[in-house]
């Protein structure tokens, strides 16, 4: 008999898997005893990040535990089971550098990532949570932005990547490291800093003009918005998965705040400083565009 433990956290690479046997298996199972019942919680499966420890027992169930169950943020989850785990420190111990996972030799970076993910608040409204429908109603844009990029400023901010990518790179979610200019890749760079000219450059880069998008996410691709400081500069925003917008002012840091410090629900009404002309919404079809 053995206990297979999968750390369900990755998307592109395989999840770490550990098989426990003998005394170690028994010790772990003792710490995983179900405690106080919890409100019913569906297993998390379809979001990015830490989705819990998945346990599979060979040889069937033991004690009060089913043959397959999950531990996520201190809650044991399975069909007919939703209870606090006896040892609330189990996940931290198991995934820490002193826990069993160290045997896989994953390296400090992975342990740090796991720790960060474990400490991240459990997402609400996901995968059948009791308040899922309420959450989706409250954030009605959420469902319609599934193809939109994540708001991940940490990926863009800092190091040479930050300074060599601008608002156009960020909005199209396309890192060229060239401080991209609309139309340049197609040999049709804008001739003047006006809405029609910059728009024409973006269209040449294969962005799709969507003037009637009205702040609604497209079924495919993601929504961006072009604004212009007439004769001075252009600027782009992108709509994220949560329905909020974010942007990267030039070589500066990506942010989800406008010039007044507010979250951006609509770039048409955001405080945009001297970018006073709102030009249009556009759609970025992932993989279709080319920018330089």
């Amino acid at each position, binding site marked *: 008999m053995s206990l297979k433990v999968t750390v369900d956290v990755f998307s592109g690479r395989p999840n770490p898997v550990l098989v426990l046997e003998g005394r170690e298996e028994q010790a772990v199972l003792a710490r995983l005893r179900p405690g106080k019942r919890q409100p019913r919680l569906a297993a998390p499966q379809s979001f990015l990040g830490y989705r819990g420890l998945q346990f599979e027992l060979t040889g069937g169930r033991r004690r009060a535990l089913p043959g397959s169950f999950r531990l996520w943020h201190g809650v044991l989850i399975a069909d007919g089971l939703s209870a606090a785990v006896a040892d609330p420190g189990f996940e931290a111990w198991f995934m820490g550098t002193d826990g069993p996972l160290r045997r896989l030799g994953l390296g400090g970076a992975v342990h740090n990532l796991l720790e960060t993910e474990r400490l991240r608040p459990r997402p609400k409204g996901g995968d059948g949570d009791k308040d899922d429908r309420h959450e989706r109603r409250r954030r009605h844009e959420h469902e319609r932005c599934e193809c939109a990029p994540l708001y991940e400023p940490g990926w863009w901010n800092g190091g040479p990547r930050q300074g060599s990518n601008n608002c156009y790179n960020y909005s199209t979610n396309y890192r060229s490291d060239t401080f991209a200019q609309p139309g340049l890749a197609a040999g049709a760079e804008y001739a003047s800093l006006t809405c029609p000219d910059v728009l024409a450059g973006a269209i040449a880069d294969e962005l799709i003009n969507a003037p009637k998008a009205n702040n609604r996410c497209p079924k495919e691709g993601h929504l961006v918005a072009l604004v212009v400081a007439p004769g001075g500069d*252009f600027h782009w925003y992108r709509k994220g998965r949560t329905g909020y917008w974010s942007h990267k002012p*030039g070589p500066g840091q990506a942010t989800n705040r406008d010039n007044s410090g507010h979250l951006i629900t609509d770039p048409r009404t955001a405080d945009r400083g*001297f970018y006073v002309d709102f030009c249009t919404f556009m759609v970025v079809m992932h993989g279709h565009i080319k920018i330089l």
Partner: protein
Amino acid sequence: MGTSRSSEEGGWIGGVLVYSGRRDPTWPVPAELGHRLEQLWEGLPPWSGRRPQPPPLGFRGWTLTAPDGRVWTAFRQLVALAIDGRRDAEREFERSLIASAPPGIVPTIAL
């Protein structure tokens, strides 16, 4: 000496942080002025209290880049080299830097 060595490698560059889509304007700064601004900054008192925060979009300050890659940023009375901020009550650093810019290179929205 670090500064002497680096000044032989390249030039001092002035700049203004103002654009988003376009590259920000930059201009060469005479080495003599670069060294003078460096000495000016070294003599400024440390900044205390809350630092002024530029808005995400629009004018975000002036920069002076040394040949060795160090970058001073001036915004209002704050002149910072990395996390070391100094108070330039008379904004002499900023005024000297602006004065070194060729005519027309600094957009009026930054002035």
